[in-house]
C-alpha cells in the first residue's frame, strides 16, 4: 500500500514536468517554443540518466557518510522494494533540474543545457538531498537521537524548499546571470522592456498541472500512507491554502503596483499564476508541520516575496529571467525554509517526524517554531541550511556556467537568437505561417478560430 502511494505520488510529480513544460512554452515567444519544450523533454530524460548512474547513490546510498552516499550507484544492490523510492526521488530531482530551463530560455545553447541537466541530477542536487533527507545527512531531521541532530533540531524541509526549489532556483540564477539577458531585454539606458510570452493559455495550463502535481509532491513526501494518512491529508489542505493565498496576494500586489506606476488597474494573469506557484513553493518545507491558518499566512507572504524578488532580480541584479523562476523557486524556497523554522507546530512535528530520544533513551520533543512559542533554534538551523545550500549550489553552478561561456558553448549567436531558436536550431517554426493571421487577434469583431 505504501509502495503504491509513493509510486502514485511519483507519477503526479512526474506530471509536473509536463506542467513546467507548458508554462515555459507559453511564457516564451512563439519563435522559441520548440526549443524550450525540447529542453524540458530532455532534462526529464537526461535527469533520469544522471539519477540512475550517480544521483540516487549519492543521495540515498545504503552506505553513506554525513556528506554524501557511497553506494547504490546504478541501482547496484538495491532491493526491488525500494524501487518505488527511486522513482519518487527521481521525479523530485527532475523537478529541480527543469526549473533552470525557464531561467535560461530563449538564448541558451541546447548542448549546454543537456550537460547542465546531467551535472545537476548526478552531483549538485543529490548531495543536498543527502544532507537533508538521508538519515545520515548532517542537516537532516530524520535522526533517532536528538544529540545527533544538527543544532539539536536538524532542518525541517518536508518536501524540498531547500533541496529542490533553492537548488533549482539558484542554478537558474547562476545560469541566467552567466548567459546574459535576451537581446532587447534592456534598452540603451539599461531600463528593462517587457517581452511577453506567446500563449497565456499554455502558461496557465502549466500552472494548473503544476498545482495538481503538487498534490503528489507534498503529501507524497510522507513516504507512507498506512499510519500516515493524517499527515498526507494535512499536507494536501495546507498545499491548497498556500497556493490560493499566494495567488491572491501576488495578484493584488501586482495590481496595486501597476496602479501606482501607471494609473491603470491591470489584473495580471501571469502574476496570479506565478503567485500560486510561489505559495506552493513556500509551503513545501512546512506542509506537514503547520496549522492551516499558518499555511494561509505562509502562502500570502510567499506571494509578496515573489513579487518583490522578481523586481529585485530584474531591476537590481539586472538578470533576465523569462519565467521569474529565480523569484518563484530560489527566493520563495528560502522563505519556505524560514517559514518552517518559524511556524512549525509542536504536536504536528511529533506526528510527522520520527520520535526523538535523548541520551538516556527517553522520548524528547522537537524544537518547534518561534511563532508557536518555541525557541529560535529551529530558525537558526533553517538559516544555516539556506546558507549551506546557497554556498554549495553557487560554488558549483557559477563556475560551471562561466566555464561553458568561456569556451563559447553557452549562448547562441545573436542572429540565431533574433531569428528564433526553432528556425535556427530545430528545423522550423512551431507554428506554421498559415495558422497565424496577422491583425485578427485584437479585431473588434473577434477573429476566426485559427485552426478551423
Amino acid at each position, binding site marked *: *500500500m505504501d509502495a503504491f502511494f509513493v509510486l502514485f505520488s511519483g507519477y503526479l510529480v512526474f506530471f509536473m514536468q509536463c506542467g513546467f513544460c507548458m508554462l515555459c512554452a507559453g511564457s516564451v*515567444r*512563439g*519563435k522559441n517554443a520548440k526549443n524550450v519544450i525540447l529542453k524540458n523533454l530532455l532534462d526529464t530524460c537526461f535527469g533520469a540518466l544522471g539519477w540512475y548512474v550517480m544521483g540516487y547513490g549519492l543521495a540515498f546510498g545504503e552506505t553513506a557518510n554525513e556528506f554524501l552516499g557511497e553506494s547504490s550507484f546504478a541501482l547496484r544492490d538495491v*532491493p526491488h522494494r525500494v524501487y518505488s523510492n527511486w522513482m519518487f526521488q527521481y521525479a523530485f530531482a527532475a523537478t529541480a533540474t527543469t526549473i533552470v530551463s525557464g531561467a535560461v530560455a530563449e538564448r541558451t545553447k541546447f548542448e549546454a543545457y543537456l550537460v547542465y541537466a546531467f551535472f545537476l541530477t548526478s552531483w549538485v542536487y543529490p548531495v543536498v538531498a543527502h544532507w537533508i*533527507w*538521508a*538519515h545520515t545527512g548532517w542537516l537532516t531531521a530524520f535522526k533517532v537521537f536528538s544529540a545527533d541532530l544538527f543544532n539539536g533540531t536538524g532542518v525541517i524541509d518536508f518536501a524540498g524548499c531547500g533541496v529542490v526549489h533553492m537548488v533549482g532556483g539558484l542554478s537558474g540564477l547562476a545560469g541566467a546571470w552567466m548567459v546574459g539577458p535576451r537581446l532587447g531585454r534592456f534598452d540603451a539606458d539599461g531600463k528593462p522592456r517587457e*517581452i*511577453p510570452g506567446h*500563449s*497565456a*493559455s499554455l502558461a*496557465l*495550463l502549466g500552472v494548473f498541472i503544476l*498545482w*495538481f502535481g503538487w*498534490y503528489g509532491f507534498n503529501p507524497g*513526501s510522507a*513516504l*507512507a*500512507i*498506512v499510519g*500516515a*494518512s*493524517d*499527515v*498526507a*491529508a494535512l499536507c*494536501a*489542505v495546507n498545499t*491548497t*491554502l498556500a*497556493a490560493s493565498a499566494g495567488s491572491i496576494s501576488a495578484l493584488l500586489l501586482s495590481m496595486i503596483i*501597476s496602479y501606482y506606476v501607471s*494609473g*491603470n*488597474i*491591470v*489584473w495580471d*494573469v501571469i502574476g*496570479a499564476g506565478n503567485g500560486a506557484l510561489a505559495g506552493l513553493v513556500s509551503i513545501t518545507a512546512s506542509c506537514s508541520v503547520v496549522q492551516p*491558518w499558518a499555511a494561509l499566512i505562509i502562502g500570502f507572504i510567499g506571494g509578496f516575496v515573489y513579487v518583490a524578488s522578481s523586481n529585485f532580480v530584474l531591476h537590481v541584479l539586472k538578470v533576465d529571467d523569462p519565467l521569474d523562476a529565480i523569484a518563484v523557486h530560489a527566493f520563495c524556497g528560502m522563505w519556505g525554509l524560514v517559514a518552517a523554522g518559524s511556524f512549525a507546530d509542536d504536536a504536528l512535528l511529533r*506526528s510527522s517526524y*520520527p*520520535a526523538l*530520544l535523548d541520551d538516556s533513551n527517553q522520548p524528547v520533543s522537537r524544537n518547534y517554531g518561534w511563532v508557536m512559542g518555541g525557541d529560535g533554534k529551529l530558525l537558526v538551523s533553517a538559516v544555516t541550511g539556506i546558507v549551506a545550500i546557497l554556498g554549495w549550489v553557487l560554488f558549483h553552478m557559477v563556475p560551471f556556467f562561466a566555464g561553458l561561456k568561456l569556451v563559447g558553448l553557452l549562448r547562441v549567436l545573436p542572429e540565431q537568437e*533574433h531569428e*528564433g531558436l526553432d528556425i535556427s536550431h530545430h528545423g522550423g517554426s512551431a*507554428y506554421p505561417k498559415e495558422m497565424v493571421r*496577422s491583425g485578427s487577434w*485584437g479585431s*473588434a*469583431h*473577434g477573429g*476566426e*478560430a*485559427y*485552426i*478551423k
Partner: protein
Amino acid sequence: MAGVLEPHGLGRAVLQGEEEREMEIRLEPRQGQLANDLDILWLLLAAYLVFFMQCGFALLEVGSVRAKNTKNILLKNVVDACIGAVVWYAWGHSFAHGENGDGSNAFIGGTNFFMHNSKDISPDEQDKASGFNNANPYFAFWMFQWAFAATAATIVSGAVAERCQFRAYIVYTFVITGFVYPIVVHWVWSKEGWLSAFRVDENANGEEEPDVVFDKSLGMIDFAGSGVVHMTGGGAALLAATIIGPRYGRFDKDGMVQALVGQSPALATLGTFILWFGWYGFNPGSTLVFYEHMYVASKCAVNTTLSAAGGGLMTLFIDTVVFSNPPDISPILNGLLAGLVSITAGCASVEPYGALIIGCCGGAIYYTASKTLKKLLIDDPLDASPVHFFCGIWGVISVGLFATPANVMNTYDRKPDVGIFYGGDGHQLGVQILGALTIGLWTCTISFIMFWTLRSLGILRVSQDQELTGLDISRHGGAAFTYGGDDSANITSANAVTALQMQPVK
C-alpha cells in the same frame, strides 16, 4: 536500535530501509489502521482529480471564447479556485457540514469555523492511545468538498464570459462558495439537512433511525451533485447570463444568432477530456469511503462513462441528422458534459443501460435548452446553463425514474422506495422533484438578487469599448497571444501600453 524505534509515521521508510514494518496492520473491516488510511487516501485522490477539472474547465472556456478575452477567462478560473479555498476554509465548509452544534440546524451548518475546533479536526486521543493512528478524515473530506465547491463556482464564468467585470466576478465567487452553495450542501448531504438522505434521529429506544422528508422515501438522492453542484452553479449561470445581457453582436436586429466562434477547438476538446477524466474523481469518489465500497465506485465509473458517451452521441445525432448540420465539435463536447452532469445524481443507483438512456436524454435536453435560450435572446457563451442547470434538473429527476432496488439497497442499505420504472410508487420521485424545485428556487432567487444588484451598481458588465477591444488589452495588460517571428512581441507590448494609455480604467 530497531527495538526502540516507535513504528509510526514519516521517515519510517527512510529509517528502516529494508526492515519490515513492525506494526501489525489489522484488516478488520472499517476499523483497522489500513481501512482508515485507505479511506483517506481515496478521498484525497478523488479530490485531486476533481481539482484538475478546474484546469479542464479553464481550457474549455479558453477554447470557446475569442482570443482577445483569453487572459480574462484564465484569470477568473485561477481566482475562483483560490477565493473558493479561502472562503471554504473560513465558513463554507462549516455552513455545509458543521453538524451537531449550537449553531447548526436543518437549514445551515454552524460549527468549526476557520477549522478552529481541534476536537473536530484532530485525531481521536483514545484511538491513539490504543496504538492506532486514528486517521480523522476531516482534512481529506475538506479537500474533497472544496474541490466540489470550486466546481460549482466556476460554472458561472462560462455564462458571463467576454463581458463581465472582474470585481463582479470576485463578489459572486464569494457569495456562491460562501453562501448559496454550502447551504444546498447542508440540505442534501449533511446528517441534519432537511432534504438529506443521511438525516437521522433518535427513536424511542434511543437508536438512530432515518428521519428523512417524505417517510417512505430515501430523502433526496443526489450521489455526487447533479442538484447540489450543477443546478446551483447552473442556476446562477442562467440568471447571470440573463441579467448581464448578450455579447455585442450576438443577436442581430432580427434576433438571429450570430456565431461568435471560439478560438481553439483543440483547447476546448482538451478541456472537455480533462473534465471527463476528472469526473472519475467526482462520481466514484463520492462513495467517500474505500472499504466495502469499491463495487459501487466501479459501477459509478461505468455509469459515468456510458452517460457521457450517450450524451455526446445523442447530440451528434440531433445536430447532424435532425438538423442536418455538418458534424461539429462544439455541440458534441457540450453533449458529453450534459451526459456527465445528468448521471451525477444517480450514478450509484442505476443500471448501466439506464445510465446510457439518462445520458442520451441529457444530450437531448441540453440541445433543446440551448436552442431555447437563443430564441429567448439569452446569450450563454459556453452553454453553461443548458449543460448544468437543465441537465442537473434532469439528473435529479432521473433518479426517481431509474433507481433500481438492488443498486439502492447496495448503496444506501435500505430501499423504502425506488424508481417508478422499477416498481416504485412515486415517493422517491416526489422527493427528487421537491429537491430540484427547492434548489432551483434557492439558487435562482439569490442569484437574481445578487446579479441585479451588481448590475444596478454598474459593476457587472464592462463598457462597450472594452468589450470590443477585448478584455485582455483593456484590463489585463495585453493580448494573450503574441505570435510572429519578427519580434512582434514588441508591437504587442506597445499596443498594450498604448491601449492602456488611451483607456484609463476607472
